C-alpha cells in the first residue's frame, strides 16, 4: 500500500557521513565499474602529464631512426617518420579525451533540454522532436560523419560537432522517457500546482530526477566518440599525421604491418582498445549501481 514509486526509489542524497566507507562499498559492489574507472584514470593522467612524462617531442622526427623496433632508445619503436611511438601514443590520449569530453558535453547540453521539453510538452511538439531525433539516429553514423566532415573541412572542431550531434538523440530519448514516467505519476502536475513557471519545472524539478538514466550512458557515449573519431582518422578524414592521434597513427602503421613493423599500428591500437574497454566497463558499472532494483534493501 505504501510502496514508494519509482521516483522515490531513486536513492536520495542522504547525509554524507563516512565518505570513505561509502566509496569503498560502492567500489566493492561493482568491480567492473571500478576497473573501468581505474583504466580511464590512468589514461587521463597520461593525457594530463604528457609534456612531462614523455621522453621525446611527439612530432620530432629522427630521420636516422625511421621504423626502428622497440628497444633501449625508443621504448616502443619509431614510426615511418622517425617519431617516437610511445610519446605519440601518450599524447594521443590528449586527443582521445579532447574529443570525447567536448562531444559528451555537446550531446548533453543540446540533448537533455530537448528531451526535457519534448517530454514535458507532449503533443505535436513531442511528436516532431521524436521524428527528428529518430532521423538522426537512423543514419549510419560513420557515413554521416564522413559526409559532413569531408564537406565542412577537416578540423577538430568539426569532428567534435558532428559526433556530438549524433549523441544528441540518445540523451534526448533517455531523458524524455524519464520525464514521461514522472509525468504519469503526477509529478509535473504537482509542480504546476505549486505555481512553478515552466523553466523551473524543467530544470529545478525534472532535470535532477531524470539525469540518472543519462548518467550510465555517458561513459558509453564517450567510448563511442573515441572510436568514431579514430575510425574517421583511419579512413583519412579528419585528423591526419603528423598529429599524434591514435586513428591516424594506426592508418599510417597499416602500411607497415605486412613488412613486419608491427609496433607502429599495434601500440596505438592497444591504447585505443584499452581506453574504450575502460569506458565501457565504467558504463556497465554505473548501470549496475544506478539500477533502481538495487536500492530496495537500503531504505
Amino acid at each position: 500500500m505504501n510502496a514508494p514509486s519509482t521516483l522515490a526509489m531513486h536513492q536520495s542524497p542522504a547525509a554524507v557521513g563516512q565518505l570513505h566507507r561509502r566509496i569503498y562499498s560502492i567500489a566493492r559492489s561493482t568491480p567492473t565499474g571500478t576497473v573501468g574507472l581505474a583504466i580511464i584514470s590512468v589514461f587521463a593522467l597520461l593525457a594530463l602529464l604528457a609534456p612531462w612524462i614523455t621522453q621525446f617531442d611527439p612530432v620530432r622526427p629522427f630521420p636516422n631512426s625511421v621504423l626502428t623496433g622497440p628497444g633501449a632508445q625508443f621504448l616502443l619503436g619509431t614510426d615511418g617518420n622517425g617519431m617516437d611511438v610511445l610519446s605519440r601514443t601518450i599524447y594521443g590520449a590528449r586527443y582521445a579525451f579532447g574529443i570525447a569530453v567536448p562531444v559528451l558535453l555537446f550531446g548533453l547540453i543540446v540533448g537533455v533540454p530537448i528531451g526535457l521539453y519534448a517530454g514535458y510538452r507532449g503533443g505535436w511538439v513531442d511528436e516532431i522532436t521524436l521524428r527528428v531525433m529518430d532521423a538522426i539516429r537512423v543514419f549510419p553514423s560513420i557515413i554521416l560523419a564522413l559526409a559532413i566532415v569531408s564537406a565542412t573541412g577537416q578540423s577538430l572542431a568539426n569532428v567534435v560537432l558532428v559526433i556530438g550531434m549524433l549523441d544528441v538523440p540518445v540523451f534526448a530519448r533517455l531523458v524524455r522517457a524519464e520525464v514521461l514516467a514522472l509525468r504519469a505519476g503526477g509529478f509535473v502536475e504537482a509542480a504546476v500546482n505549486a505555481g512553478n513557471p515552466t523553466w523551473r519545472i524543467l530544470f529545478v524539478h525534472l532535470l535532477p530526477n531524470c539525469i540518472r538514466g543519462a548518467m550510465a550512458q555517458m561513459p558509453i557515449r564517450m567510448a563511442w566518440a573515441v572510436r568514431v573519431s579514430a575510425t574517421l582518422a583511419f579512413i583519412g578524414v579528419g585528423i591526419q599525421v603528423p598529429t599524434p592521434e591514435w586513428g591516424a597513427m594506426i592508418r599510417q602503421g597499416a602500411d607497415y604491418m605486412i613488412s613486419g613493423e608491427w609496433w607502429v599500428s599495434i601500440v596505438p591500437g592497444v591504447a585505443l582498445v584499452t581506453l574504450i574497454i575502460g569506458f565501457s566497463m565504467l558504463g556497465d558499472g554505473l548501470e549496475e549501481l544506478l539500477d533502481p532494483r538495487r536500492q530496495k534493501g537500503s531504505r
Partner: protein
Amino acid sequence: MTKAPAPALELHDIVKHFPGPRRGTVVHAVNNVSLTVQAGETVALVGESGSGKTTLGRLALRLEQPSSGRIMLAGEDITTLSQRRLRLQRPHMQMVFQDPWATLNPRMRIRTILEEPLKLHTRDNASQRLERIHAIANQVRLGGQLLERFPAQLSGGQLQRVALARALMTHPKLVVLDEPTSSLDLSVRAEILELLISLREQSQVSLLFITHDLGTVRLIAKRIVVLYLGAVVESGPTEEIFQSPAHPYTRALFSAQLSTDVRQRRERQILQGEIPSPVNLPPGCTFAGRCPMALPACQTRLPVLQAHQHREVACLRLPEIVAARSAGLYVDGVATGQVKRNASETLT
C-alpha cells in the same frame, strides 16, 4: 452590513471530453456538473471509478482544461485565464494529491519543498519564510527535525502531512484533496482526518474532499456530492443523505459499505453488472442499466436534478421515492430496492 464572502469554488455546467482509445471515440468524463463550495465549507465528492471525481478536482484547479463550462474561484472567473495569470491564482487554490511519493521531489529536503510556494508567490525574506514554515509544520504536527530530511526518509503519513503543509503555505481559500487517505494505513488515516478537521477550524479554508470511502466522508464533510459516470446523481447535507439516501445508486453505494460492526451483517443490495465504460454513454440515465428500479423511460430520458428538502436528486422516480419515504417504507435508514406505492402494489 458586511457582504457574505463569495463561495470558494463554483463550477457551472462543466463538461469534459477526452479523445477515446480508438479513433473517433470520446470519453465523456464529466457531463454537465455544477457544484458550489461555500467559504469555510467542506464538500465531499464521492464516486467510484469512472465517476469523474478526480477529473473534476483537477478541472476545479485548472490543472485540466474544461471542454465547456465556467470555473469561479472566490468570485473570479478563472476559466480562460492565461497560464501566467493562472499562476498568480495558484496561491489561492491548492491540491493535495493522492500519492505523496510521486508528487514530492525526492531530491529536495522537506524544508525546501515547503519553502517553494513562498519563494514563488511572496516577497518574504528568508527568516519570514522560515517562520511561516515552522508555523505550518506545527499545525500539521510535523516535527522540526523532519524538515531537514528527504522524502524517502519519511513515512507515508508524514509525507501526506508535508503535502498538506505545502498546500497551506500560501493561505489558500480552497484546497482540493484527492483521496488523501487512500494510500495510508488504517491507524494513520484517523490522524490525518483529525488534522484536517482541526486545520479547517483554525483557518476557515474550504475543502473539496474527493474520495470513494464513505466512512471518512461522514466525519469530515458537511455536504456530499455523489457522482456516477460523470454526472451528479445526488447532493446535499451529509447527515441527511447518510440517514436516508434517495437515489438508487446512492442507496446501493451505502449498502455496499462494510461496517466493522459484526452485528450489522445485513443483506447487501448487490448491484448487477459492472460500471459501463464512459466511452459509449447510453442515452437517458447513465445508471439505468444497473438500477433495480429502472423503468423503460429511464433509458431514454435524461434525469435532471430536482430539489427535495435540502438536497438535489437526479432520478425520474424521485416523487415516488419521496412518497415511499413519508409512508415509512425505508428500513434502517437504507431503502430497499422495492418501493411500494401502497400496501398491495409493488414497483420494481
